[in-house]
């Protein structure tokens, strides 16, 4: 799968790409389908040590990308703020003065990595629904190919929230010998019916858009309405009752009275519409279909069935830090506790903290010194 070129010095914070699985050496996916070539878009932050032993892999959530942080604000080459600037940087939770941080766009995404909007070599047109159904495992195997390419044989830690947390767990069971420590945040071993339900509503919103056209919309009008509605639904699940009461309450948007119509009256309506329309500028509807399905299919407990425990799947030396949030109703704390329970039963070294926050599932993305302090201390303790 590896391509022949060896990487030169890696410029920090610059989006790069790596292509592997060039025909005929296609990547065989979890469901048996074959795909290739596969391009991975990635960025790195900090300096890789000579021994290549200071690497941390950051895995992004559903709609994230490789731009996890912006080390050089104001300078050319940094594409605006990163999605985890509060966590990654010099002296921060993940200290780029110490660690070499890698973040890559997930397989199936639409921010530079091969996904349904990429060109299908068989047809010369975008894949659309011909894109194979990739799994979290496939995403992680693509990340592994990137690390092989970078010559990194061991990771100090894999860290990520939400769907990124699923990738963290997948790393632990798929490549246990490569992972010294794992930090799954605001995540779950498997989706609840509630989480699947919201994903299904989001998918239906996209597929009900007449512009979706069975996924063949590239080069014509895109299913923006459907994608915007999908984002609005998703966004509600990332917030919480408390956060919405605090942020919006029943306040009206730029008016004193109800309009008694279907235009925006409430601030929360205006906010969601804005979130939806901003999202369609940067995200592909088919990617959302594929990635939400991959999240729904993910099930770590299935792998521990039939008398197998996480101890058979993870490395004994691996240390875990599991973090959940009090107001996360998408992946509530009881799901984090199930993970902690499974790790304890397997004799794994696990720490757990439920952070009190009213911001819902998205809390892990919101600057919070508590999470940074936890992560920094945990990483220090590995030495």
């Amino acid at each position: 799968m590896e391509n022949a070129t060896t990487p030169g010095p890696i410029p920090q914070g610059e989006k790069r790409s790596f292509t592997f699985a060039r025909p005929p050496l296609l990547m065989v996916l979890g469901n048996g389908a074959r795909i290739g070539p596969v391009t991975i878009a990635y960025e790195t932050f900090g300096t890789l040590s000579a021994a290549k032993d200071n690497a941390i892999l950051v895995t992004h959530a559903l709609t994230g990308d490789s731009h996890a942080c912006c080390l050089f604000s104001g300078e050319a080459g940094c594409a605006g703020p990163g999605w985890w600037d509060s966590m990654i940087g010099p002296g921060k939770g993940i200290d780029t003065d110490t660690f070499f941080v890698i973040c890559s766009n997930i397989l199936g995404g639409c921010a530079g990595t091969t996904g349904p909007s990429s060109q299908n070599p068989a047809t010369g047109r975008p894949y659309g629904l011909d894109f194979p159904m990739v799994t979290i495992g496939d995403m992680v195997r693509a990340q592994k190919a990137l690390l092989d390419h970078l010559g990194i044989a061991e990771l100090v830690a894999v860290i990520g929230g939400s769907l990124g947390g699923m990738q963290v767990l997948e790393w632990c069971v798929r490549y246990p010998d490569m992972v010294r420590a794992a930090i799954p945040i605001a995540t779950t071993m498997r989706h609840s019916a509630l989480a699947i339900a919201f994903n299904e509503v989001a998918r239906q919103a996209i597929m009900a858009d007449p512009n979706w056209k069975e996924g063949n919309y590239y080069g014509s009008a895109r299913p923006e309405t459907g994608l915007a509605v999908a984002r609005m639904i998703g966004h509600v699940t990332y917030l919480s009752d408390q956060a919405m009461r605090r942020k919006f309450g029943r306040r009206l948007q730029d008016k004193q009275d109800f309009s008694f119509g279907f235009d925006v009256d409430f601030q929360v309506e205006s906010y969601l519409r804005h979130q939806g329309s901003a999202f369609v500028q940067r995200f592909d509807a088919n990617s959302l279909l594929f990635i939400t399905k991959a999240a729904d299919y993910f099930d770590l407990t299935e792998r521990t069935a039939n008398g197998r425990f996480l101890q058979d799947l993870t490395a004994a030396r691996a240390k875990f830090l599991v973090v959940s949030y009090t107001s996360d109703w998408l992946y509530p704390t009881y799901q984090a506790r199930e993970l902690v329970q499974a790790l304890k039963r397997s004799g794994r070294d696990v720490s757990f903290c439920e952070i009190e926050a009213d911001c819902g599932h998205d809390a892990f993305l919101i600057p919070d010194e508590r999470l940074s302090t936890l992560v920094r201390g945990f990483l220090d303790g590995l030495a």
Partner: protein
Amino acid sequence: MDLPESAKMRYDLQIIASWIAQGSRVLDLGCGNGDLLAWLAADKGVKGTGIERDAGKAAACIARGLSVLQGDLNTEVDDYPDRSFDYVILSQTLQQVLEPAALLRSLSRIGRQVIVSFPNFSHYTIRLQLLLKGVAPKNEQLPYSWYDTPNVRVITLDDFRQFAGEVGYTIVREAAINTDHHDRQGHRVRWCTNLRACYGIFAIEKNSPRALQ
């Protein structure tokens, strides 16, 4: 006690630390700010885990690099496989446990030895307050009023010795101590311990070997 390195630690924890063997596996229930675990890791190469109910304290422990789980010790201990630890430590918490016998059963399942410390409710200052003043007694170790105390179990050293025997444990080691100076310093009490000691510390083991599940 000759433990100069641990002088900043609570005195009962200094005693407990001195009982822990080098390189052993330790579970500290109600580990607070993690002083004992940090000391054991640094000075005895102990592989330690803590359980702490308070989120802020648990987070502070993790930020120190300790392995600590935020949760209720009564339920958290259920998840560990048998004999996961060499020592399970329950310091100054037994008096707040609703079902001490059930908890001790759990602890002796997951640990080879259980070390328990608690304030002695038959200290003479306590006895005199009840006898002479007729009010619910308080002292430095038991500073609460009847209406706000978290201590739901009134234990004396003699009570614990009897209890341990009745529920099937052998006391393999014990210390009675008096403390002063915010509990950071203290001394051993050698005679009339039930009357004169502020705290009791006991290391207990289950009497008969049980079949592993």
